[in-house]
């Protein structure tokens, strides 16, 4: 019999992908685990291993296609009865329905029935558990309710279609309906040559993410300046040894540490808002995303447990991450799980700007370029004088639904103090 391979649910709200490569051809025999295609999702490029052993009978997609979870990509001729995608997704996909053929014969004669009570069998069916896979604990090899539940617990099971259809995935970007585009664009060719490029994958993901964030979250921006004269001196002093260790000592690193400390003091900045349950989710881990500009567009690798790592460790880890995202060799996982994001426009020469929160996070910190500026300094005797200092613009954008301005100021103050006084920073780091 033929089996269709559908784009599996890759989790994390990923619902579509672009086909990057198709190393197999119709008629080709593949073994389970062989790479049959390479796809790029919103989050990363992934290689897809074949779930079956069999022969490729038909390839229904081409390189460059955008495909949606549940779409049939390749069909195999094999003995495999099971379909790749769990049934709920097929249900939501008209294409899948179309692909489905006539009724298969009744199961009865297929395999020897597994001993289990009718109610147990019903439970198994609803949890999508194949009784043959479950190891029985009942007398004389009878499968019990508990066996099913245990098995289901191990392998995370999609809910039955009845439930899934009820609860729309609010967190998923798709949940935000883009306002109907009522503006028809003029014909630009009237004024000169144009080029039409596909609006897809990372570009599109960014667009969707930003739209949802901007339309959903009431943003508030706190601008300020940081006197990083001392910190810069400190950086110059230590950057060679860090370089030796295989990292780059950047302002971003100091900001990460300062932010980690601030997040500990103000946990509401390390949170997410769950509108469905009407709850604020406070995260007890501090994974900070760093906005990286790549040729494919904006990418945000996440550095885990910033609070528990030394500047040096972070420097090395961050440098590696940046290298991977620019090369496109990063994994999906390292792009996930951030609790706060830092974006540093300084390197590119940007100064004052505002940033959009990386939903579902609740705040983002932006750093501008440090420039020598005249500053008024007051000495201990209270005398003022104007001296050149290295001043860095800094901006904190936060979700006013979750935190208030006062806290934001305090949060920002904490960060600024840390950055203005390296010793302070070093102390809080410990």
């Amino acid at each position, binding site marked *: 019999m033929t089996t269709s391979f559908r784009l599996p649910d890759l989790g994390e709200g990923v619902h579509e992908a672009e086909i990057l490569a198709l190393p197999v051809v119709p008629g080709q025999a593949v073994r389970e685990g062989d790479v049959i295609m390479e796809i790029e999702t919103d989050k990363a490029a992934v290689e897809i291993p074949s779930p079956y052993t069999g022969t490729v009978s038909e390839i229904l997609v081409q390189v460059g296609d955008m495909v949606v979870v549940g779409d049939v990509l390749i069909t195999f001729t094999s003995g495999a009865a099971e379909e790749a995608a769990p049934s709920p997704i097929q249900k939501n996909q008209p294409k899948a329905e179309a692909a489905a053929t006539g009724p298969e014969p009744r199961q009865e004669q297929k395999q020897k029935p597994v001993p289990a009570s009718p109610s147990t069998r019903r439970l198994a069916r609803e949890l999508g558990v194949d009784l043959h896979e479950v190891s029985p604990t009942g007398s004389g090899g009878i499968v019990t309710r508990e066996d099913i539940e245990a098995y289901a617990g191990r392998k995370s099971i999609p809910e039955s279609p009845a439930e899934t259809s009820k609860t729309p995935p609010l967190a998923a970007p798709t949940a935000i309906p*883009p306002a*109907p585009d009522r503006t*028809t664009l003029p014909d630009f060719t009237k004024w000169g040559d144009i080029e039409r490029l596909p609006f897809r994958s990372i570009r599109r993901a960014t667009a969707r993410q930003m739209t949802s964030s901007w339309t959903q979250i009431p943003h508030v921006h706190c601008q300020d300046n940081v006197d990083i004269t001392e910190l810069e001196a400190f950086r110059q002093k230590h950057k060679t040894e860090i370089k030796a260790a295989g990292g780059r000592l950047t302002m971003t690193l100091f900001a990460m540490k300062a932010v980690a400390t601030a997040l500990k003091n103000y946990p509401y900045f390390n949170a997410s808002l769950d509108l469905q349950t009407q709850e604020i989710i406070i995260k007890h881990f501090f994974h900070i995303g760093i906005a990286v500009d790549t040729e494919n567009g904006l990418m945000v690798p996440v550095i885990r447990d910033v609070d528990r790592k030394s500047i040096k460790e972070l420097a090395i880890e961050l440098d590696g991450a940046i290298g991977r995202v620019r090369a496109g060799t990063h994994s999906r996982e390292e792009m996930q799980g951030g609790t706060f994001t830092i974006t540093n426009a300084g390197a590119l020469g940007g100064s004052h700007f505002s940033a959009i929160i990386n939903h579902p996070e609740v705040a983002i910190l932006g750093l501008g370029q440090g420039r020598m500026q005249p500053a008024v300094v007051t000495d201990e005797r209270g005398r003022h004088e104007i001296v050149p200092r290295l001043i860095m613009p800094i901006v904190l954008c936060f979700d006013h639904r979750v935190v208030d301005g006062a806290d934001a100021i305090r949060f920002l103050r904490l960060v600024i103090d840390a950055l203005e006084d390296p010793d302070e920073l070093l102390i809080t780091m410990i």
Partner: protein
Amino acid sequence: MAKMTMVEALNLALRQEMEKDDSVVLLGQDIGRDGGVFRVTDHLIDQFGSERVIDTPLAESAIVGMSVGMAVYGLKPVCEIQFSGFSYQNFHQLENHAARMRWRSQGRLNVPMVMRAPYGGGVRALEHHSESREAYWAHTPGLKMVIPSGPRNARALLVSAIRDPDPVIFYEGKALYRAFREEVPEEEETLPLGKGNIVRPGDDLTIIAYGAMLRPVLEAAENLQKKDKIEAEVIDLLTISPLDESLMVASVKKTGRAVVVHEAPRSFGPGAEIVARLMEGAFYYLEAPIERVTGFDLIIPYFSREKSYIPSAERIANAARKTLKI
């Protein structure tokens, strides 16, 4: 609550009103033994006898003319014209008398009658059986024009119509008679005449319709939501005259766009009045010209072609898209 077709719901309304009030009498062709050609009065003669469920000679003018007399006497006649296509033979009785008695007698006499008639196409009926001419009655001062869109509101509106002190023309969409069933409570339910309903809230545009057109309109609204992410607000007028102007205007002020749908021919049809009211009430809020999706200015064709004449969900959805393009 029991599930009922519109036919059963109307029957329930008549039965309960007759039980409550002995001044309610029915008259019309074939409404007795036969229970009406659509069975709306089925079995009422068994319960109330031929003095209250009166089979009349084949004479539309007599049915309405006698109703006027009975109403003046103090009864509440509910007469059935077998098909609205034949109600032109009693036009003058409504226009010259039913609509004017209260006014001519300066309130001394009134005509609390209801004229029920099936209207509209979509059931592959023969000619003269599929017209939608509600505009005639809506255009006649002194009459009220009511058109329900489903079993439950049909029942509630008929009860209100019977109790209304003025003559009410009550059109029943043939296509709705048995089209679907709804929970209709046994206990009494009424709906105020002259008040419409928002049956589906939305922000992108307002679709105004009534009677049998509600079904294609709601289907269109679904498709607009699914395919175009367009949220259409749907207004079910329920009463064509007097119009629920404030409801329509408020909605269009909110959405800025409107599509008006009816089965009746376009020119001088209810849509013309509805659009005019919207221009008067919401002109400065409009973001696009108002669209009308209606029957064409033709005699409704014999049934092999009627599907193309009657507004379809697709035509309605396209009109909606058109208003949103601007």
